[in-house]
């Protein structure tokens, strides 16, 4: 049944968010540290395990794929509810600081991608 997939997704989501908030609490930071990431790892691990044991039907899986197909519409709704005016009310400092930081990140993508790829292909025998 589809609801089994949705329920599994909800369980992983809530468990991941709990781990994220717990981690924040332990480090003394308000909020959620990596909750979405933990939830994704849980969902991948549990669904792979269930599929291997034949306990996860294709029908259940559609309960999850529906929500994964909904993220573009949800992102559009998110874009429509951003405080876009604030971006321009912060003046030049905000515009320049935000844009320059983003550009710096963009430019570092090829550098770090290469670094990581090299380390992986050698399988790091020295460690």
């Amino acid at each position, binding site marked *: 049944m589809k609801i089994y997939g949705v329920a599994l*997704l909800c369980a992983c989501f809530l468990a991941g968010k709990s781990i994220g908030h717990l981690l924040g609490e332990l480090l003394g930071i308000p909020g959620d540290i990596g909750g979405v990431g933990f939830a994704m790892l849980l969902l991948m691990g549990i669904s792979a395990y269930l599929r291997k044991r034949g306990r996860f039907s294709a029908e259940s899986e559609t309960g999850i794929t529906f929500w994964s197909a909904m*993220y573009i*519409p949800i*992102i559009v709704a*998110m*874009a429509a509810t951003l405080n876009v005016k604030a971006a321009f009310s912060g003046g030049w400092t905000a515009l320049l600081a935000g844009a320059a930081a983003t550009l710096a990140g963009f430019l570092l*993508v090829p550098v770090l991608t290469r670094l990581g790829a090299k380390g992986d292909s050698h399988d790091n025998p020295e460690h």
Partner: protein
Amino acid sequence: MDWLDPVIGKNGLILAFLVVGLILLFSYAVSHFLGRGRIPGAALAIIMGLALAFTGSEKGIADHPLFAGMAVLGGSMFRDFSVVATAMGANLETIRKTGRAGFLSLLIGVCISFIVGVLVAWALGYTDAVSLTTIGAGACTYIVGPVTGSAIGATSEVIAISVAAGVVKTLVTTIGTPLIARRIGLTSPHAAMVFGGLIGTTSGVVAGLAATDAKLVPYGAMTATFYTGLGCLLCPSIFYVLLRIFIPA
């Protein structure tokens, strides 16, 4: 038209689904019409969303009571939920392999954003460590800025600037990613994880990757989700202390 009010008021979320459906329908039609899909429909839809956000202020289009449901649909609950669901299409092995590069990109991403933010603020005339740290933190994400600013006692004006800097980052990422993706080699899951760690604004990373190549979304989201937490950890503590050494308060 009084009879219509309760229909909208009680069914805001449903209306939001309809509105977003219409935006996507329109965007994909335009994308098909202009250049036969060369401009991704998802990218057009996101830009249309941003344009609609201009009609309101703090909550964008959701500031209008008619569209209040958009804030629920576009809020962090549904966003995070649907992003987690995309993990079904991700490969656990790829993520394990990229783990170290992802972690490295997170650390470097937070440091670089902070340094760039501080330098810009310095160049534009801010000289006290508290304001510089807060604006630098805002250049990480629009959550790191106010968290840091209130922790170290920045003025509300500076905190507002830090939030604005973070929002600018989200917007530039959303619009810029599909334009620059090929040139910076953002074509593999591996590069997407590095990208998520370097940029860090979850909403910008997810929206930008969605407009570039939907398959990359889970990988970018995976690392980006740790960025804000790491920023909140480093900015008001180590970074602030280090900056105080150079600039006595």
